[in-house]
């Protein structure tokens, strides 16, 4: 009996090669011990281990546990539907009232073979989507036993890693859209995260926003906290402090921390952008939160364990709770990353900026490649940053105080989803395929 208990525990503990949620372990974007390839060319099939077609449209990221990769997708019966890439400010949503199928799929990490796929829901979308987004934008999350997929207004679905539906939960209409015109629906995108035996969901919408925790076992709501918020799209991050775990949320009215066990609000901080999309990251005792829409584009470095109203007094850029901050330079879509001693941000137009993570001192600012449009968040491993563009390339940049572009690797399809790392593999979701690259891919 004791032996079985040990085996079960081992099965549910993330290993170095796992990438269990949006941006991997703790949403850091960092693959400790991973050795992804530096060079590949998916068009010429160089260093491509496998390539698997994934039907439908989705900008959600792949997640990895053990020998399996999990992805979500939404398949419209209107075959003309596509993602609109590029830099544009249009606010009108895509109107696609055709029947969709929302699916969760599992693939073999070694071969890319589809092991199972389950249709979570079939019907007409309850809300519209942004032209650059999809009806399956939230990244699934897994603890190695349960895979949870969130499809906004279509609900929250939990499967065993073998593909058995464990439970489903209707979380209401998730009409996230433009604050200026609620008819401009852009669709939900905040991804679920797992904390202990719960899955936590940030639901910021036009009315009655909330954050809630559901029992991983059966989907029962364990706590719910109302949020005085308008729509937001960032994924919450679990931050483990000295004596508590907190859920950090990026929101318009305030950046907030909640007790991850109870949902009790611990701290708030403003001001923030009117549209928030990025995910907080935590490293070296600090929590970094950025946003890139008017009226302010802040970067905050918040000390872990702070409580109360952390809003800075007029003219101040730091305090007992805020190590440093700036009201300019925050990024809009790609989430920031801390790697080594540096905080890196990538703007929508491909401007990479490096800061001293401890002090906020700007080290360099450089356009990556020839620019273009960037939506995926940067990830890092083995001393390098991986930055994907909507144009279908992944740039490899040397991490450190000086900018050095190492490689530009074609994937051949638009990339809006943040790639995943798994050991020697770099897993990239293009507009139509999932790719696995490795240095010895051929």
């Amino acid at each position: 009996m004791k032996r079985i208990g040990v085996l079960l525990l081992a099965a549910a503990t993330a290993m170095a090669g796992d990438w269990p949620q949006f941006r991997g372990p703790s949403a850091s974007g960092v693959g400790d011990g991973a050795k992804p390839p530096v060079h590949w060319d998916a068009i010429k099939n160089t260093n491509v281990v496998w390539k698997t077609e994934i039907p439908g449209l989705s900008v959600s990221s792949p997640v990895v546990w053990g020998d399996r990769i999990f992805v979500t997708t939404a398949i419209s019966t209107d075959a003309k539907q596509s993602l609109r890439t590029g830099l544009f400010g249009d606010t009108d949503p895509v109107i696609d009232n055709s029947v969709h199928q929302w699916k969760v799929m599992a693939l073999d990490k070694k071969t890319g073979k589809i092991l199972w796929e389950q249709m979570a829901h079939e019907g007409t979308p309850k809300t519209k989507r942004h032209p650059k987004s999809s009806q399956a934008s939230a990244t699934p999350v897994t603890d190695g036993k349960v895979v949870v997929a969130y499809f906004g207004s279509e609900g929250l679905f939990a499967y065993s890693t073998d593909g058995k539906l464990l439970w489903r939960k209707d979380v209401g209409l998730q009409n996230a859209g433009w604050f200026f015109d609620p008819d401009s629906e852009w669709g939900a995108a905040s991804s679920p995260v797992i904390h202990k035996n719960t899955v936590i969901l940030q639901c910021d919408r036009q009315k009655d926003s909330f954050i809630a925790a559901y029992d991983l076992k059966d989907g029962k709501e364990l706590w719910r906290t109302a949020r005085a918020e308008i729509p937001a799209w960032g994924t919450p991050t679990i931050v483990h402090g000295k004596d508590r775990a907190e859920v950090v949320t990026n929101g318009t009215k305030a950046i907030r921390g909640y007790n991850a066990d109870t949902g009790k609000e611990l701290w708030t901080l403003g001001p923030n952008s009117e549209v928030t999309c990025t995910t907080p990251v935590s490293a070296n005792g600090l929590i970094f939160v950025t946003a890139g829409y008017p009226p302010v584009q802040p970067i905050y470095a918040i000390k872990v364990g702070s409580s109360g109203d952390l809003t800075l007094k007029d003219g101040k850029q730091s305090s007992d709770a805020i190590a440093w901050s700036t009201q300019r330079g925050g990024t809009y879509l790609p989430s920031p990353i801390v790697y080594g001693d540096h905080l890196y941000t990538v703007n929508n137009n491909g401007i990479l900026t490096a800061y001293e993570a401890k002090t906020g001192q700007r080290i360099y600012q450089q356009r990556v490649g020839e620019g273009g449009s960037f939506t995926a968040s940067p990830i890092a491993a083995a001393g390098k940053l991986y930055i994907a563009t909507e144009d279908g390339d992944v740039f490899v940049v040397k991490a450190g105080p000086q900018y050095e572009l190492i490689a530009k690797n074609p994937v051949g399809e638009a990339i809006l989803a943040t790639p995943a790392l798994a050991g020697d593999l770099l897993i990239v979701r293009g507009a139509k395929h999932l790719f696995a690259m490795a240095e010895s891919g051929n």
Partner: protein
Amino acid sequence: MLRTLLLIFASLTLFGADVNEELLAAARRGDLASVKTSIEKGAAIETKTSYGQTPLYLAAMSGHQDVVDFLLAKGASTNVHDTFYKAPMLVFVLQRKHYDVAKALIAKGGSSPDDDLAAVGTRNADMVQAVLDKGKPSQASLDKAYEMALEQKQDAVAELLKKTGAQPPAPAVEVDAKVLESYAGVYKSEQLPFDIKVFVKEGKLYLQPTGQPELAPKAKSPTVFEYAPARAEFEFNSAGSLTLKQGGGNYQFKKAVTP
């Protein structure tokens, strides 16, 4: 008695807020019958959302022609800027290509031809004609729009403006090559998250903000350069500093790298 009065006041205030909310919602969804009912119930025609949008603003940006016509007939103001983007309603109406609504706002609205011309820009000759049909903008507005239309190679718009009396833009001021060279370098700002590279190519001054295309501004004086399409002005204050003036803001840059 006081308690009763307070309760009556509170319920009236609540009632006012409710009908105003109803009016805003009805205008946004294009529900003319509910718009009329809300106004009959006492809703304020110039009531605003938290972003400063009036019922006319909402109906116009959503392209609800019948509601727009009704509200204009009721005297709703077209001279409304929201509090977030600080944009006149025409901007969103045009962005969403509600051209008939735009024409109604221009024709029946109370805003000046100068404001209307600034809002419609120089990329749609039909809209520029609608502004000119309403009244002649000031010479300064005409000239500025004409210069922009020429820069953007909008020939039809340029021709319209020229016919209305726009004067050709003044030629660029000749600036000594040594002065231009003295401006070259990379400028950094504490206020803005990008650098500006300044350089001279074939005797002309160019500026390139990080991640953006090269800009070729026109010299208005040896120290002031204007880039009309972005309505931006660059002033080299003294050796090593530069002020970007755009959208009502002044942003300071200091030269960090000299070539």
